[in-house]
């Protein structure tokens, strides 16, 4: 199987050996032998640095032990030592490791620093004694590299060497010890961390050593953790806090929670510990945190509530419900957010119970929580709340019905609307249900209620119909336009001006032709012209509608709307109509624009007509870009 890769190094290989344009007979296989041979030859030659560098890169990906001698010979080369290591570290053969170790005794200066790093990367335990010798040499860079390499090797023997070097510590010794300790069994690591935390080391080293000493000891580290938590050294307290967050000790949560319960910690430390208990997400701490939340106040209480939310113990739900409805402080807000995000359904029954509580605050908060959790199971309780004597509770319940309800809830909302107590809220809820679900059958209960509704209720229902649009809603609106009450008739007509769907075009044109006393001819015309482009009929049918309006238009403002409507009708007749306005100084630019738009749609089928029209446009318009478009359609200057 030949696999093409995107390696540019293949190009380099190709330069070395023209017969190789693709490579690798198998997945992950070494380089073809003759390619490797040529790359090795490049390393041994007086080729340019770049060529040798590229050879090393290619050997890093596909070289074998055969390349090791040539690469090892470059380890002492100031310029190429790095690239030799670049390949040697990647060749998975003991010969590479041997070559790097042997170079420890031969290379000097910066190349030696690099070789030491590679020996560390290879985890070469056979090199520990040699590396130990470098720790006390005169070259600080070499000593630093040896300390880091010993840390990477990570054995007890390496740890012993580094511990001995603590007599004259350096940053690299500290780092090496921290690193080596990670690889040791916990029992062996703890004394290393102890040595570091007790050393006259910089504060960050002592902090992380303390943290690691606590974590390494597991249960036995808890007394050390508590000592630092209670101690006077703020830096070590923060290290203990970090350890408290990270330790996997089985008893840590209980111990920390007990410390909270004791009340012995200073307030600032207590607050940090409460936050830590939240991040541990261990239910063991829930009782102490609940107790603390009840007896504390302010920020500490809010933090305790937040931690309970993070832990997610259902046992805390009653407390969250209680706090959520108790006030509007941070603890209450945190409790509400916790109830909204509480995973699973265990929070839902308590939230529904809030809707039935005796205090209105709980009902209001409950309605909001129902919305945010999208709890359709609470609809029966919301319907009850919607008729509550308290207007705030009723309105909040109705709003919630609008946010999560469906058309099945529309009859109840229509009834609430027509009953007259919460008309505005119910109108909003019906509109919200339609906006979310886009199901026009919501018109049905409205149609049933309209004839017997009071005037204010009728006006409200008509506004809902106007938002819904469509033929059923329009039919009801038409009936209302003949209502015995003037206010209802006038409102029904006004609703048509903003009707969202094109079925209303004939009605609007009819109003424009013979406006009733209260009607506005201009608004009717504008409404019709807005809806004509939305009509689904043939271009000829749309054109007929526009022509009806043209006969009624008296002002340039509406004429411009008509031109816009015509621009969407690609017929020769609409083009001719548009051209009539080229001579009108007030409309010539809009007419030109409409003509070009029509022309672009019509040019393939009626090029001659379009070209002639475009010539008129070119001569009329002052818009250079428009003129160019017209010329592109055959218009002549």
């Amino acid at each position: 199987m030949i696999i093409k890769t995107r390696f540019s190094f293949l190009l380099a290989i190709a330069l070395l050996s023209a017969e190789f344009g693709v490579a690798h007979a198998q997945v992950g296989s070494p380089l073809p032998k003759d390619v490797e041979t040529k790359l090795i030859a490049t390393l041994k030659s007086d080729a340019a640095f770049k060529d040798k560098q590229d050879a090393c890169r290619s050997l890093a990906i596909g070289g074998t032990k055969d390349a090791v001698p040539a690469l090892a010979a470059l380890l002492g080369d100031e310029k190429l030592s790095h690239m030799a290591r670049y390949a040697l570290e990647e060749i998975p053969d003991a010969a590479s490791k041997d070559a790097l170790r042997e170079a420890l005794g031969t290379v000097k200066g910066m190349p030696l620093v690099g070789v030491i790093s590679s020996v560390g990367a290879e985890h070469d335990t056979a090199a520990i004694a040699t590396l130990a010798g470098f720790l006390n040499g005169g070259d600080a860079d070499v000593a630093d590299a040896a300390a880091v390499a010993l840390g990477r090797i990570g054995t007890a023997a390496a740890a012993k060497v580094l511990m001995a070097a603590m007599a004259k510590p350096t940053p690299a010794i500290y780092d090496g010890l921290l690193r080596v300790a990670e690889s040791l069994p916990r029992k062996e690591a703890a004394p290393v961390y102890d040595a570091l935390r007790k050393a006259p080391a910089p504060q960050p080293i002592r902090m992380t050593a303390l943290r690691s000493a606590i974590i390494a000891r597991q249960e036995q580290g808890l007394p050390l953790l508590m000592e630092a938590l209670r101690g006077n050294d703020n830096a070590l307290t923060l290290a203990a806090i970090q350890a408290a967050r990270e330790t996997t000790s089985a008893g840590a949560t209980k111990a920390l929670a007990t410390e909270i319960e004791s009340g012995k910690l200073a307030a600032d430390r207590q607050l940090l510990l409460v936050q830590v208990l939240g991040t541990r997400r261990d239910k063991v701490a829930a009782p102490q945190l609940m107790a603390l939340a009840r007896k504390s106040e302010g920020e500490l209480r809010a933090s305790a509530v937040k931690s309970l939310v993070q832990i997610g113990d259902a046992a805390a739900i009653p407390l969250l419900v209680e706090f959520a409805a108790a006030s509007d402080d941070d603890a209450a807000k945190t409790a509400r957010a916790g109830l909204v995000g509480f995973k699973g359904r265990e929070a839902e029954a308590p939230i529904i119970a809030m809707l039935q509580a005796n205090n209105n605050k709980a009902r209001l908060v409950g309605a909001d929580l129902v919305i945010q959790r999208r709890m359709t199971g609470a609809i029966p309780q919301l319907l009850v709340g919607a008729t509550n004597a308290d207007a705030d509770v009723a309105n909040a319940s109705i709003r919630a019905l609008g946010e999560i309800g469906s058309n099945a809830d529309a009859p109840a909302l229509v009834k609430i609307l027509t009953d007259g107590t919460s008309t505005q809220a119910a109108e909003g809820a019906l509109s919200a249900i339609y906006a979310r679900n886009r199901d026009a059958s919501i018109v049905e209960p409205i149609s049933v209620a309209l004839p017997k509704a009071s005037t204010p209720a009728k006006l409200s229902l008509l506004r809902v119909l106007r938002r819904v649009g469509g033929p059923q809603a329009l039919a009801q609106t038409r009936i209302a336009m003949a209502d015995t009450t003037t206010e209802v008739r006038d409102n029904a007509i006004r609703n048509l001006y903003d009707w969202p769907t094109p079925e209303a075009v004939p009605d609007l044109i009819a109003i424009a032709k013979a406006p009733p006393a209260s009607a506005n001819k201009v608004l009717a015309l504008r409404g019709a012209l807005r809806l004509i482009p939305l009509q689904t009929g043939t271009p000829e049918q749309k054109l007929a509608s526009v022509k009806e309006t043209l006969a009624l238009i008296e002002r340039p403002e509406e004429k411009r709307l008509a031109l816009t409507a015509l621009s969407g009708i690609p017929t020769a007749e609409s083009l001719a109509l548009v051209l009539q306005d080229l001579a009108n100084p007030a409309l010539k630019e809009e007419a030109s624009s409409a003509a070009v738009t029509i022309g672009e749609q019509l040019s393939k089928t009626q090029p001659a007509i379009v070209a002639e029209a475009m010539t008129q446009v070119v001569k009329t318009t002052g818009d250079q870009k428009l003129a160019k478009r017209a010329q592109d359609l055959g218009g002549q200057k």
Partner: protein
Amino acid sequence: MTSEENATPKISRRKFLHKSFATGSALAFPLVVSSRVLGLDGAVAPNSKIILGAIGIQHRGMDVLGAMLRETGMQFVAICDIQRKQREAIKAVADQKYGNNDCSTYRDLRELLARPDIDAVLIATGDRWHSMGSIYAARAGKDVYTEKPVGTCVAEVQAVDDTVRRHGRVFQVGTQRRSINNFQTAVNLAQSGKLGKIHTLHAGIVRPGGGRQWLPEQPLPPKEEVDWDLWLGAAPWRPYNAGYVSGGWRGFDDFDSGFGVNEWGSHTVDLCQWANGADDTMPVEYWTEPEKIVCRYANGVKLVLDFLKDPFGDRSPQYITAMGTCPVRYEGDEGWVETGDSGNIEVSNAALKSELLALKRAGAGTDPGTHTSNFFQCIRSRGLTNANSKTMRHSHITCHAAAIAWKLNRKLTFDPAKELFVNDDEANRMLSRPTREPWKI
């Protein structure tokens, strides 16, 4: 404190570093815990200022440093850059802000890191220094905010996470979208189950590329003006060309990360990892398809890295262009959500739209403000940042693994526990790049 301008010439750098570290003064570490002192309400105790240094600040770095300078309770005291003009430019910004001449300048980051008074550093160099700078800073006991991507290879990513955790440092990678609410909202939707069972995650990325070519050699400038050796850092040596230093280093394998996959992938793949609840793992299979790299998690969820034909312009058809740069899209069997740097979110249906009602208007996805605030809060509480080293490790290695699959142009299987490809020596030999001396991970 010593700066390159006023260093005592008789003490060598090595001696200076060892001396300053060994005698490192015990910092007055304030136990700062209340929200007032944590800076949550803008108030800070008088003695609890975090002392900050910065390394390699240019355009993006200035965005981040600017956000940090707006923080209360922080004092910026030192800039390190291998270019003199940049050192001076950033010093001027700091000195103007504080009305003094106190900002120290350094050419070599090791000297800045040796200052015991500095608590934290911002690293905003090119990619090749993000990992090495973070490692050296963590070893020196500094908390680290570094720009992404971290690590030009998998081994460097691992070393950053290991070192940061070993030294107990607070670490934030500059994948600031983790701290921006439209991205958080989209992740919440994915994790809430409201999209149904998640089956595909889409991450927009810049088309991969790169190579081993060199720019033509130019005369080496004086070290004080541009320290070319330090600019290269741990990368293989090559001759100087001003083009690299002025920002034209992208597209060169030695300096880029994951053949360019990590450039946006460190953001968008990271967000997908988060949405999938996969912060502690990685996909197990990687393969290429036309204009994309596809990955599969052990639970069957697909992660698709889409190559955008015009990342900064038309992002169709894979994404809604209006969502902006760094787009992500999470698809479940009941709906989808898509967002990007514009702050807008689009969802598949009206029911999901209602989930967005509470979403506060998001800022631009490139704004680092909330992310840097999170960093400073965690410095004080020693808490985990939003984009900590562990989550960074998994998302960045995912990008690298995808990039290697693209480079080899074949399907690869990956073991997330061992962080190795399965039965593929060639791919595994691409996971690390030995560092140039004296730099070591």
